[in-house]
């Protein structure tokens, strides 16, 4: 029992970018700091062929927990897991629960639903800019759309995909093009390239509104960002990994939502040129409570 507790992380991109990969990285660092675990990570550039090997590399070196940060790791984990019954394979944004492979999911559609509500209450037209059409993005946008629809069924929404997660310039141009077509609420969601969307909002005047997602981007567009949705996925992961360390392996998949206030922080930016009014905030709080209580479905499952 003298062996140190070890956790490994697989990310599908670069941890240096603000965005999805950074979230996973922060979780890893949190586990290291709070649980005293020995940690390591590997970046796999969206290449499915290398996933299995990376799991093997970690597992064969005696790692106790391996977090595959993204549903795309699920297949590879399932293939490798039977060989290492003592290792727990956690998969982000997955609903899996098969032996030692456990899905962790942050239901992003919930905060995006709230953003949709705000958009519909404060604006005339919404524009969404996605990286690639993959589930976390689509789920988020679905939540946003449902949020909008719950307030104003005819509220126009446009969607643009730039086709990658690196071209911040494309995100910016796509956002500008949406704004030129009348969108006054733009929401970028493209991992490393997200920042371009805020840039576009900042350049288009104070009437264009947006929302900072996953990280704090207020310095890029202080007048335009109405609020922040910060995902502290790390808190959730630390909780689960702590349980595992203490011998309490989860038996089903885990889903974080607005109910987990430590994981999902939803706040407002009072520096915004047109801050969200008290009335709207109150309405949003009610919706939020209902979502947390499971009374509102933010997306189909």
């Amino acid at each position, binding site marked *: 029992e003298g062996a140190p507790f070890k956790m490994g992380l697989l990310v599908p991109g670069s941890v240096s970018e603000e965005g999805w990969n950074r979230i996973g990285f922060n979780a890893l660092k949190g586990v290291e700091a709070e649980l005293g675990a020995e940690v*390591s*990570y*590997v970046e796999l550039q969206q290449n499915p062929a290398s996933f299995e*090997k*990376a799991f*093997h590399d970690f597992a064969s070196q005696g790692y106790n927990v391996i977090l595959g940060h993204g549903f795309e790791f699920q*297949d590879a984990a399932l293939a490798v897991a039977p060989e290492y019954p003592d290792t727990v394979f956690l998969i982000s944004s*997955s609903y899996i629960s098969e032996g030692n492979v456990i899905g962790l999911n942050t239901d992003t559609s919930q905060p995006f639903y709230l953003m949709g509500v705000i958009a519909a209450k404060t604006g005339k037209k919404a524009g969404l800019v996605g990286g*690639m059409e*993959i589930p976390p993005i689509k789920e988020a946008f679905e939540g946003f759309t449902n949020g909008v629809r719950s307030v104003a069924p005819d509220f126009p929404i446009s969607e643009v995909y730039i086709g990658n997660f690196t071209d911040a310039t494309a995100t910016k141009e796509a956002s500008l093009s949406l704004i030129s077509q009348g969108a006054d609420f733009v929401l970028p969601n493209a991992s490393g390239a997200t920042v371009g969307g805020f840039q576009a909002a900042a350049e288009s005047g104070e009437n264009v509104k947006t929302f900072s997602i996953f990280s704090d981007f207020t310095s890029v567009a202080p007048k335009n960002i109405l609020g922040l949705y910060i995902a502290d996925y790390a808190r959730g992961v630390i909780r689960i990994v702590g349980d595992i360390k203490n011998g309490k392996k989860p038996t089903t998949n885990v889903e974080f939502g607005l109910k987990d206030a430590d994981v999902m922080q939803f706040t407002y930016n009072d520096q915004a040129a047109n801050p969200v009014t008290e009335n709207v905030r109150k309405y949003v709080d009610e919706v939020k409570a209902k979502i947390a209580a499971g009374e509102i479905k933010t997306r189909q499952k």
Partner: protein
Amino acid sequence: MANSESGQPLAVAPQAYGALWRGLLRPLRTVAQPAAAVALALACGAALLAFNGYDARAVIDVMVLGVFQDTRSIAEILLKATPLILIGVGLCVAFRCSIWNIGAEGQFYAGAAAATAIGVSFNGLGAWLYVPLVMLAGALAGAAWAAIAGLLKIYFRASEIVTTIMLNYIALIMTSYLVTGPLRDAAAAYPQSARLVQEAWMPRILPPTRLHIGILVALVLAVVMYVFLFRSARGYALRVVGISPDAARYAGISVPRNIMISICLSGSMAGLAGAFEIAGVTRRLFQSISPGYGFEGIAVALLANNNPIGAIFSGLLFAVLRSGSELMQITAQIPQVLVLVIQGIVILSVVGFAVLRIPSLRPSE
């Protein structure tokens, strides 16, 4: 590996001692040069690490000992080398015909998509039929995708450099459409195709590792392509077209025909690589099935001086570097992107050494 002479069959009558001397010296040189180049590149990588505050010893630990630690590691290297060798060998053929096919990446995607389409479609076909069928589908689709650039060149004089680059983007976008549309696995959340029917899976040759027959096919094809290029009549015609289209026309060698042959051959190899990746490794089609194999394949071919046998070695080298870089990140948290730097330096030092030591390698006017 970077030996131009092996690219030209000079059957000079053997003068006993000279031949013996050459026989000993040439292999030595061909091994020594790249080895020195790689050592230099690793040293540069280590210096870069040390300079930026990382633990530089990790490079040596991992590169020299780590990557070959067990059967699985070696199998994984061969697995990575498979697409690189296949694409590199194919590009040797295209480049020898002066067809600058930058489109192996797109042809790889085309092959992968076709292999998937075939691989998910039938049941009860039997592996002995299904496996070749999947390979054929990949090769044909790769060739067809490349043929577009060939036809555009022949009929519209459109530079293949431009068209293959464009076709790369289009193939990527098409794959994205396929996995979110027609080929999408309805049951999965992730945009990916359904899993291939088990009979279509490439037989594994070293269980429990993932190594499959693809590597054997790649090695055989490298030899076949070498013989084709430098020992066969048709390969000779192809090289003449590559050096001097006017001389080819004068000699009654059809230039368009050889353009099509070379670009389709290289496309089919890239397509085949795509099929192997699907049916041998991932078993599904994803949007980003290639981490840039097609571009790395260009470097593989060029590093091998467009010699298919050489491409085996440069392909292996690049696979080792990639494997090592993943391991380095796990063991020493060294950013994996360092591998790109090391690859770049390997190429530069190989051409540097080659030019220093073999005068005949200097490009002639």
